């Protein structure tokens, strides 16, 4: 961690970083710029807008786009939150078992989890599409939450296992001797100590689900209108953006899509900026101490 970096090397690193930062920030800046342009200026080939307008944002929140975008946003938030809570809860128990107990097949579980994480989603989508339609999960919240769990669980299990392993065994043994049941020891000692890990895992899981496009476009067809808890309608923001039509087919919906894209990027950016250190700690926990 505390590897010494000479000032000279630092300067070089900074120089090398500039093109990479530009490369990644340019498109984001462009999206922001597009979302702020009046619709007439969209194709004026200027990177910076000549005149600013909030029309695109107004359209998706209160105007014609409201009925499509707002329910999609609610779907996104709801589905991702539920998937995260379930995923972290389940993986906490699983990881605790893996970190603490010796049982045959332990490696198998970890490796299977890893395999699932790398399994290409696109190959599952088609069978899942048929299956979901048969059992009535197509275009429902649950129909997306379940595949999202399969995305987030492996990652969560790995990060949480690494975190639980860092908690000294003796801490728990002390709790047991003090008179705690296994459940009390887990809840009062292990969980509070692993809180940073649980938190990081939750954020990473949330983003994984939040950014998903493949499942969202394939397993849902409508947003379900303005009432979120209807049985049908689970399109999330990324899916809606892909099929956004705009008010008329003669006006390209570029500005509205850009505005919506900015709206869904904001929570990601805010969370990452806030919890930068913790996320990095979570991602490297396995690498350093696993």
């Amino acid at each position, binding site marked *: 961690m505390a590897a010494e970096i000479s000032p000279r090397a630092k300067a070089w690193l900074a120089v090398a970083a500039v093109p990479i930062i530009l490369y990644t920030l340019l498109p984001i800046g462009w999206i922001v710029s597009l979302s702020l342009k009046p619709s007439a200026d969209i194709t004026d080939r200027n990177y910076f807008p000549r005149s600013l307008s909030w029309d695109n944002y107004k359209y998706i929140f209160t105007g014609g786009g409201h009925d499509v975008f707002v329910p999609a946003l609610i779907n996104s938030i709801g589905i991702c939150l539920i998937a995260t809570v379930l995923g972290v809860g389940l993986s906490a128990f699983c990881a605790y078992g893996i970190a603490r107990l010796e049982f045959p097949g332990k490696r198998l579980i970890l490796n299977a989890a890893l395999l699932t994480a790398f399994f290409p989603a696109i190959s599952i989508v088609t069978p899942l599409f048929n299956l979901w339609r048969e059992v009535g999960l197509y275009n429902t919240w649950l129909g997306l939450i379940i595949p999202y769990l399969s995305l987030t669980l492996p990652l969560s299990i790995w990060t949480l296992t690494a975190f639980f392993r860092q908690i000294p065994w003796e801490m728990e043994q002390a709790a*047991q*001797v*003090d*008179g705690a*049941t296994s459940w*009390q020891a887990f809840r009062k000692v292990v969980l509070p100590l692993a809180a940073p890990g649980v938190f990081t895992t939750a954020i990473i899981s949330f983003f994984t689900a939040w950014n998903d496009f493949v499942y969202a476009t394939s397993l849902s067809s409508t947003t379900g209108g303005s009432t979120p808890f209807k049985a049908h309608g689970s399109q999330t923001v990324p899916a809606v953006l892909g099929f956004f039509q705009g008010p008329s087919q003669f006006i390209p919906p570029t500005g509205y899509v850009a505005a919506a894209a900015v709206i869904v990027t904001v929570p990601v950016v805010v969370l990452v900026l806030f919890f930068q250190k913790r996320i990095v700690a979570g991602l490297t926990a396995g690498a350093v101490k696993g």
Partner: protein
Amino acid sequence: MSTIEMKHLTKVYGDGFKAVTDVNIDVADGEFLILVGPSGSGKSTLLRMIVGLEDISSGELFIGGERMNDRAPRERNLSMVFQNYALYPHLTVFENIAFPLRLHKNRTDESTVRKLVNDVADVLELREHLERKPANLSGGQRQRVAMGRAIIRSANAFLFDEPLSNLDAKLRGQMRTEISRLQRRLGVTTVYVTHDQTEAMTLGDRVAVLRRGVLQQVASPRELYEQPVNLFVAGFIGSPPMNFLPATVGDGVLDMPFTTLPIPEPVAAAKKKGDLVIVGVRPEAFEDASLVEEAQRAKGTEFTANVDVTEWLGNEKYAYLPFEPHPDVQVALNELDRELDGEAMRTQLVVSLDGSSRIRQGDDARLWFRPSAAHVFDAESGDNLTRDEQRAAEIAQEQEDERKRELERARDREPVNA
């Protein structure tokens, strides 16, 4: 408060390694028992079997007369201080100490908790640290928090797992006295694991010496010091350690480096002429012959030897006298030394002289010792051939009487409603 009875306790690990073999110890109510031995002797495993963190492979454990083999740790009502304290880092000192009280279903009400924690904090002088987190405390303070957590509950017994090994030497001495005072005051049965023979000697009512999972001797510190059962116990107890000299049985005497020794009665019976034995004499049994009074002098043996190095410590002076060991015995002695975690560079006799002795290094010194202070061990089995069972029993009785008196005195002085 309870008795602890260990009956044929054995621990065999999955790979067949026997960590503890057939240990039988009865700990009396209010007694302070020390488990001592070099690393790998199974002392910590034995303690963890008592508390329930290790399963008992065979044998039985009774606490307060109840069989505990299959009880979970929390059902045994014992409290333990861990080597690295195992404090809960996310809780304040107050909550750490209060932790055991907060676990039970019929929870102690808040005002009682507050009162109990404050009482414990007063005993351990932690009052001003109650709101701090363990990470901000010094080693000694953490140690006291761990003890606080142990004594807050009226546990059947206290268990300590090398509690002082993470402290520096000065603090270790202070905490040692503190633990001793606390145990006497509360009068709670205590089992204490250490690898440090000084801690064992100073704290324990009785000391159990373990070697590779096998109990060697359980006795009062004085009995261990004066009447060890074998070479291992003799070498482990005492600092600087006992000198072991190879000797051959001659005509009525034992021939050993520097001098000869009249053959003690039991040795003459067990060994014949030409047999090898090991003679053990403690450094403090020697004295500068010129400082010994005439009347005393006649009762001992004198010899002259060249002194290699001396070390003057003020109240005493150590002198080192190298000698050529007998090769047969040397193997056994090296083995013993390795087991005791030592790494002796050379074979030498260490003698502890009075601080006023004028012997300097390089001198041919005239030294005196009393033959009755010497133990003779079998060169092969290591058994003490000169152990006086009758004297040992006397010492055990004296120590037991003293312990009971001490405990009663402590209870009279400070009636604790533990």
